[in-house]
């Protein structure tokens, strides 16, 4: 009896291309809302991107009820509660997130607080805990990496309890995502490189991890093609709108892929490395990706080999093992080039991780749900071995 089964879910309307954000008021009205609670951060505001948003509202009949621009890099539950409070005070009826993963996740979590009419986010941790329909959420990413604009996940720090709270629910999916190249033009080279490698890691892990399915496969391969075509171009010339659009679409496709096929050991280790040593998520992924791929060679050489034509600049020769090694080498070549262009770290020791922290990272990583989807079984000892290789 064939016992295989997969699910695929992505209800997010995607508006991608030139002046995409100008369609925001139309989409708001289509969803029956007119007054936006905008969630962003100081960097986005400082780069002048909020003025693009404000211009989009001119003459639209919709308006901005409130702008919250103090979202920290790792959003905390206190931030979420503050956003929810402002939402109520200003009589908003929808959320608009403009920024990277932290802004988007903050808006998703504030949406839980509002929709469930609660002051205790902790009650909704885990999967499928939301009981009521959420408010419309519109997202304009300003980095090409997290894919949060199309995922059903939000991660928020509970600073009092000292834990990262993960929420997953189909109700957390945004209503619409606006992929507007104007929004990523000001992203600095090193952040462009790190977030781009985050997106590439999503795509590669989505392709070889256990929950892969034919639909996520096609999205993952599309993402890899777009990212390999344009990541270096974006780092070399941030004003290249075509390359920026490629990267934004690539990150989005990778987000759709991994939201349905999940990720593996690279993300488990990167989450723990970020939690313990505060290494940015994209940087940790960039360092760990080739080692995570190698860790899965015994179980997945054939699948990783399928990535070679999409990752390698020249056709890879030989059997599965040789072509899989060529795919891994192509990732190493890419990160080496990014290192030369903008200083993206190649080793954990270059990213501020000290050797005495490796064991704690390894122990934390085996409690990460991403390991469920990794083809190879990973114990704390296995995780430590990978970390030492990447150190």
């Amino acid at each position, binding site marked *: 009896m064939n016992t295989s*089964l997969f699910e695929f879910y992505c209800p997010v309307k995607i508006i991608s291309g030139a002046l995409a954000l100008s369609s925001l008021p139309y989409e708001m009205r289509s969803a029956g809302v007119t007054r936006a609670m905008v969630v962003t951060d100081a960097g986005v505001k400082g780069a002048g991107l909020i003025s693009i948003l404000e211009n989009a509202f001119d003459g639209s009949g919709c308006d901005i009820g409130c702008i919250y621009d103090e979202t920290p890099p790792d959003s905390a539950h206190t931030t979420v509660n503050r956003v929810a409070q402002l939402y109520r005070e200003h009589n908003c009826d929808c959320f608009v997130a403009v920024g990277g993963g932290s802004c988007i996740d903050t808006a998703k979590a504030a949406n839980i607080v509002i929709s469930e009419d609660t002051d205790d986010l902790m009650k909704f941790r*885990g999967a499928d805990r939301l009981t009521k329909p959420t408010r419309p959420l519109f997202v304009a990413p300003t980095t090409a990496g997290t894919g949060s604009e199309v995922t059903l996940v939000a991660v928020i720090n509970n600073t009092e309890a000292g834990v990262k709270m993960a929420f997953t629910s189909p109700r957390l999916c945004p209503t619409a995502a606006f992929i507007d190249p104007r929004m990523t033009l000001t992203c600095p080279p090193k952040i462009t490189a790190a977030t781009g490698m985050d997106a590439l890691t999503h795509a590669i892990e989505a392709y070889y991890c256990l929950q892969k399915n034919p639909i996520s496969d096609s999205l993952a391969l599309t993402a890899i093609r777009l990212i390999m075509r344009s990541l270096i171009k974006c780092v070399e010339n941030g004003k290249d709108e075509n390359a920026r659009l490629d990267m934004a679409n690539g990150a989005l496709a990778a987000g759709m892929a991994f939201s349905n096929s999940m990720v593996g050991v690279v993300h488990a280790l990167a989450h723990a490395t970020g939690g313990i040593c505060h290494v940015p998520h994209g940087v940790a992924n960039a360092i760990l990706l080739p080692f995570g791929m190698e860790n899965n060679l015994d179980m997945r050489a054939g699948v990783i080999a399928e990535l070679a034509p999409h990752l390698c600049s020249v056709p890879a020769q030989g059997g599965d093992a040789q072509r899989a090694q060529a795919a891994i080498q192509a990732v190493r070549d890419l990160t080496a080039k990014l290192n030369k262009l903008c200083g993206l770290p190649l080793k954990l020791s270059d990213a501020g991780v000290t050797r005495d922290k490796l064991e704690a990272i390894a122990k934390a990583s085996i*409690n990460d749900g991403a390991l469920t989807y990794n083809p190879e*079984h990973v114990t704390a000892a296995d995780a430590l071995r990978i970390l030492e290789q990447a150190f």
Partner: protein
Amino acid sequence: MEKLFLLDYKVKKKIVEISLAAVGVMFRKLSRRCPEMKAELAAWNPGRRFTLGILPDGPAATFEYTGAEVRYIGSGVKDPDVAIYFKNIDSALLVFTGQIGAHTAAIQCRTAIHGDLVHAMQMVRAMDIVVAYLMPGFMHGPLFKRPPQMGFKEQLLKTGAMLELPVGLIFNAAK
């Protein structure tokens, strides 16, 4: 094997209820005797409760770690800190009859987790140890990514636990 899934719901329910009770018996035994399980439980806070069950209102069992052992505290959902639910009884049957492993059930979206995901991962690792002792070795292949190596001591413990299982099931049925 397809015929199993055509059985009356009441029969499937009974199979799952007995399986959950057996998990309870084995959990208690291993939490007291198995070094690997003790090492896993060392990170657990005493009083932690977890539930295994079937949505929406199917059989369920709740367990509690007392600090010294894992106890089966009865059928049903009893205020757990973390719970793993099968979305339907057929998915539970796939796991409890050893056709797929717990990780495969998760990968195939057959389960839903309620509560802290770190606690859920710890629960899954502990459950894997229970499954290794409950299921015969020849069935381990599809159940684990890396089938456990069971030496003489582990086999001895497994034999003892299996001999105690019928009495434990009768005892748990009374809860």
